[in-house]
């Protein structure tokens, strides 16, 4: 199952809910304002680093570029994908759930 999360972790509870209700090993895609969760030096960086230990974490490149987040500002272990890569994740990992 692919878990998708499109909300800023500073504004909403979506990241917390996803972490609580997803199984270890299921991949996670951060997109839209959700990409801020993957940046270094924030108050949620430790939480997201722990998530990277339990899940393959992907982040949508076009959303990073729009928000001026260079790859040097991403937490270690996070993989950048484009829309084609997003489609591949959906195809490869079965059911999808969007944490809005």
């Amino acid at each position, binding site marked *: 199952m692919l878990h998708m999360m*499109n909300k800023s972790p500073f504004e909403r509870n979506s990241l917390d809910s996803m972490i609580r209700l997803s199984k270890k090993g299921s991949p996670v895609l951060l997109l839209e*304002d959700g990409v801020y969760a993957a940046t270094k030096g924030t108050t949620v960086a430790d939480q997201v680093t722990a998530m990277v230990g339990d899940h393959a974490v992907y982040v949508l490149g*076009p959303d990073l570029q729009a928000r001026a987040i260079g790859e040097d500002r991403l937490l270690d272990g996070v993989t950048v994908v484009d*829309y*084609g890569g997003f*489609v*591949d994740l959906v195809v490869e990992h079965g059911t999808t759930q*969007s944490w*809005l």
Partner: protein
Amino acid sequence: MKIGVLVNEGPFTHQASDTAYHFVKAAIEKGHDVLRVFFYYDGVNNANKLSEPQADDRNLVKLWGDLAKEHNLDLVVCIAAALRRGIKDEILAEGFRISGLGQLIEVGIAADRTVMFGD
């Protein structure tokens, strides 16, 4: 692979419809069969043909319609959600059709994957 898509928000206020559009386009380019895009909640506002963005901004209503035309894509607006929000035949953009909510469940059954975009 057969894919169904649900769009919960209108153009402009939330990014959901933009992301859904890029996803659907990429899925088609990869040779997947996007069975249907279903517009629910404020998503029905994507079908308002009167929408006229600034010249330097994208026009999602038109982009969806063009994609539908080019790729024989089924864009379905939920009738119940649309009635409430005043999206009716007289302002329905080209490429969209209005139908029942059952068409969402149906595509969920028929598709291999259903992907939701919202706020």
